[in-house]
């Protein structure tokens, strides 16, 4: 008998052993007899007419099995990649939704757009054959930035989207916001960009597809965060094959961060191709291939204004954002800079009037979609930066200005002017605790010590809130979601009383096998070691929407809790029969069913045994077996939040920014496993620091080539450039999830960029610097200092 490890305990992770011993099972590790290898031929042009493809030489190459192109896709009548969200513009018109073909049809629209799929007996042969495919491109002018894309005369990606505009979207009360600005004592203005990022999970994307002509079944192994959704969208809308004949397996997946939560063309193409060539086909992306084909994140250009009264009270907030969608609409693309962005613009503040207009724009770049945080880091960065700008302009301390506008704990639930109602939270307490942990009191002395060494020290704050736990289906439906966002879980109690959980979320680093086992261990009073968690296989797990948007514990955990409750309900019926008592008199606690007020009891294992050996059992009214399933649809988003404080030291000679201290106090609701939560916060914070200090996807504006197209040029945080962090939690339980959880996967990434950049600006404020765009690379910081200190030309 192992121990019960429930809520708040920190058992070591169940999943560790296989990873630590090299026994993980990632897609690239899987082999099949007679397996062939595929290589995607991708456009080297950002924008070009595709006049023809000559595959003759490639097909004649040694080992070549097939060269599939857009023509084959069209001939087979395959559908294009669906967009999961249909947003509606402020004029009531639906977004422009040009098709996203599996392989280019007539035109290529970004460097990396798929032009052909070349299959051969070996990987080397497939690569060699791919080099022999002759593609007749007629290059067209390309546009990569949003400002250029909406300019008159810009190259047009789609005839059906004039001006490259996908949607002109808005949220909030424009008139009320205008009125707020009319009575403002001060208006702070800020123009900024939110840098384009590439998620780069360490495992490159990969897929292995098989078709069994004897049964008509397809099996796709894919590096996916949501295998059931891949199966659904791919079978119904793209390949038009029966859903029940498709099995999608996402085994061990080496990190996702959103990048693996979309239906990718590669998944559908390889599944289709496996049937065409009659052997299993495998594809593993190279890292540089990932750079031009994994969906990118962020990429906003924003103009914002904050109206304040003479005391610094926020009166209104007006935001105009241009959001880059890339060359096509990806699975969640248009939802990210709209529904996951504008509703967060209230932040933790009582701003009464907010208006946000977002122009969603096509460009000749990789499609942009969700990347850890997805919309919410962009909103938080904007809000937290403009608060600092306003504070500096009005001569009010930035913490004081925050405190004057913060929603007090007593005001929750709090309805914002931008759709969402925060159920719980205590931003003031998080800020208090963070200031204490960060030793803000000692900052002045540390700044003086830095100055004595010729260094510039700055302190930056980010007090933030985010929306997690995607999502209440009804609300999502109103916002344009084309699917539901519930989750499902099955608790399968075996005759021995041991348990297998089958859940629709996907674990790719988050520790679900451990956290979910803890929930069941506590709820059913069974040893932690007797609970195993299964996920990622459409043939084993009933259904699920997968893992993204910090939803696994919030939505999946709630479904699991609900299914566990159903097990208890049935267990009580069995116990009532066995103990010859009324069902209402049966109590269940710590794994024991007992008759209230007596010593008559049955253990959980005894009840399980009785359910599967129903000799003495109420068969007339109760089915044998003990397995319960639940679907849970959340009633609201959850709203984790917190306060992050960053302290940087800048070397003015080199422009290098070093993070000297990083403190986070986050309200993630109830903490199930503090060890895992802390790990999620660490990882999230460093990804946010990456955005702030070093990461940027850079396109050449003339050619549309991705200049930062490998790890040689795209900077990832490393051990020696990442700080030691002090993260802790201050929890107010979520008011509407059964476990009180709010989600913790994204908070670090959402809270941190603003804290870092506010610290950078604070360090440079004495030079008159009021804003620095991300990433704050050494060169950029040096340039900012140069521009601020060079003698100005006479005016």
């Amino acid at each position: 008998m192992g121990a019960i490890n429930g809520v708040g305990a920190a058992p070591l992770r169940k999943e560790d052993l296989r990873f630590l011993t090299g026994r993980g099972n990632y897609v690239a590790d899987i082999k099949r007899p007679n397996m062939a290898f595929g290589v995607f031929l991708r456009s080297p042009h950002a924008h070009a007419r595709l006049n023809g493809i000559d595959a003759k030489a490639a097909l004649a190459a040694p080992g070549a099995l097939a060269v599939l192109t857009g023509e084959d896709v069209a001939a087979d009548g395959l559908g294009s990649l669906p967009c999961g969200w249909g947003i509606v513009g402020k004029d009531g018109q639906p977004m422009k939704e040009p098709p996203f073909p599996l392989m280019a049809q007539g035109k290529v629209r970004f460097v990396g757009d798929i032009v052909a799929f070349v299959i051969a007996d070996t990987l080397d042969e497939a690569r060699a054959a791919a080099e022999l495919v002759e593609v007749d491109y007629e290059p067209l002018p390309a546009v990569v930035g949003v400002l250029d894309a909406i300019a008159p005369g810009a190259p047009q990606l789609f005839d059906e989207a004039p001006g490259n505009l996908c949607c002109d979207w808005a949220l909030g009360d424009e008139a009320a916001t205008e009125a707020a600005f009319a009575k403002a004592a001060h208006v702070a203005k800020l123009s900024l960009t939110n840098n384009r990022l590439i998620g780069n999970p360490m495992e490159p994307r990969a897929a292995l597809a098989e078709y069994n002509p004897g049964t008509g079944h397809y099996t796709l192994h894919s590096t996916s965060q949501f295998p059931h959704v891949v199966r659904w969208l791919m079978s119904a809308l793209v390949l038009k094959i029966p859903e029940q004949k498709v099995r999608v397996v996402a085994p061990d997946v080496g990190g996702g961060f959103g990048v693996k939560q979309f239906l990718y063309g590669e998944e559908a193409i390889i599944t289709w191709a496996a049937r065409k060539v009659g052997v299993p086909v495998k594809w593993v992306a190279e890292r540089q291939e990932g750079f031009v084909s994994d969906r990118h994140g962020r990429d906003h250009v924003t103009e914002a204004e904050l109206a304040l009264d003479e005391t610094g009270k926020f009166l209104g907030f007006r935001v105009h954002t241009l959001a880059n969608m890339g060359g096509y609409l990806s699975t969640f693309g248009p939802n990210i800079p709209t529904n996951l962005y504008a509703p967060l613009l209230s932040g933790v503040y009582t701003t009464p009037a907010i208006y946000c207009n977002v122009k969603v724009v096509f460009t000749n770049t990789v499609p942009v979609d969700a990347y850890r945080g997805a919309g919410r880091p962009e909103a938080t960065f904007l809000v937290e930066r403009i608060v600092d700008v306003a504070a500096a302009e009005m001569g009010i301390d930035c913490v004081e200005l925050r405190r004057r506008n913060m929603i007090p704990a007593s005001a929750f639930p709090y309805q914002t002017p931008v759709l969402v109602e925060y159920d719980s939270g205590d931003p003031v307490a998080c800020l208090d605790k963070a200031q204490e942990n960060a030793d803000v009191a000692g900052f002045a002395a540390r700044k003086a010590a830095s100055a004595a060494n010729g260094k510039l020290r700055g302190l930056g704050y980010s007090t933030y809130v985010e929306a997690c736990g995607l999502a209440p289906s009804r609300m999502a439906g109103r916002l344009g979601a084309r699917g539901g966002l519930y989750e499902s879980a099955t608790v399968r109690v075996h005759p021995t009383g041991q348990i297998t959980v089958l859940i629709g979320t996907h674990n790719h680093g988050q520790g679900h096998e451990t956290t979910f086992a803890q929930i069941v261990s506590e709820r059913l009073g069974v040893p932690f070691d007797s609970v195993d968690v299964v996920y990622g296989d459409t043939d084993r797990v009933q259904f699920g929407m997968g893992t993204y948007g910090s939803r696994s514990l919030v939505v999946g955990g709630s479904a699991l809790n609900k299914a566990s409750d159903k097990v208890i309900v049935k267990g009580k019926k069995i116990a009532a029969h066995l103990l010859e008592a009324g069902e209402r008199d049966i109590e269940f606690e710590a794994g024991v069913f007992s008759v209230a007020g007596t010593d008559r009891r049955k253990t959980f294992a005894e009840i399980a045994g009785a359910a599967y050996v129903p000799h003495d059992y109420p068969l007339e009214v109760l089915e044998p077996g003990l397995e319960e399933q639940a679907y849970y649809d959340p009633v609201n988003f959850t709203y984790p939040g917190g306060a992050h404080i960053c302290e940087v030291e800048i070397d003015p000679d080199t422009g290098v920014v070093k993070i000297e201290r990083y403190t986070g106090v986050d309200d993630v609701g109830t903490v199930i496993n503090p060890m895992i939560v802390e790990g999620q916060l660490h990882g999230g914070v460093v990804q946010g620091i990456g955005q702030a200090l070093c990461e940027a996807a850079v396109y050449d504006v003339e050619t549309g080539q991705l200049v930062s197209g490998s790890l040689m040029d795209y900077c990832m945080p490393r051990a020696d450039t990442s700080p030691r962090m002090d993260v802790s939690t201050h929890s107010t339980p979520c008011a509407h999830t059964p476990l009180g959880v709010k989600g913790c996967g994204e908070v670090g990434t959402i809270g941190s960029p603003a804290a870092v950049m506010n610290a950078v600006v604070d360090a440079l404020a004495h030079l008159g610097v009021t804003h620095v765009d991300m990433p704050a690379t050494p060169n950029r910081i040096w340039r900012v200092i140069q521009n601020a200190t060079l003698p100005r030309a006479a005016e």
Partner: protein
Amino acid sequence: MIAFDYHKPSRLAEAVALLAGAETRPLAGGMTLLPTIKNRLASPAALVDLSGLPGMTVIQEGAGVVTLGALARHADVAGSALVQARLPALARLAGSIGDPAVRHRGTIGGSLANNDPAADYPAAVLALGAVIVTDRREIAADDFFRGLFETALGPDEIVTAVRFPLPRRAAYAKLRSPASRYPLIGVFVAETAAGVRVAMTGAGHGVLRVAEFEQALAKSFAPEAVSGLRLSAAGFASDIHAEAAYRAHLASVMAARAVAEALA
């Protein structure tokens, strides 16, 4: 990977003869060559693995010189008690190349023969006025480096050793590109018997000596002598990590830091 033939000669003459073959490349640590082949940017017909050649990994001291065998790995040089004692700047430089796994394979000979414009070793070799010893001759550092990835080496010529005259003092300072970890700018300063020599890597056009710094330091070997000097940005490359003016500025900063370290 694209197929190639493989030879591992045990005698220098044999290696030289093999390198005369068409499309044949020498292989030392492979830290540049193998990624190049992997990425299909080169497709040699054959590789000649130099690791079987005798005597190529020695690290030894002679009269006023330290000699490194061409196959001395960065980790060997960084960890050598001899180099640490006699040429500490070189030991530190070697210990700062790439990462630990790179330092376990990469060699000084390979680095010099490749002459990457952002490599570290060429800066030390040029600033210290080292002599590159090959299978057939000795080449002064001033004559060895010929711009981007170009050297004085013939196609079948093999570097066997590098001879470093011991300077009075020397140091190297660099700022690494946060992504590739190659130096954005690295400056090696050396006060040698022949005067002050300063070499810079990362500027974009291959390692080169910096006359402005040398002249200033000849007058006064102090950080202040170079920290205020502004090199023209015209001689520096611009890319997404560093604009030319920034590289030019970094050159002065790194030169001053190297001098300060040399004096420390």
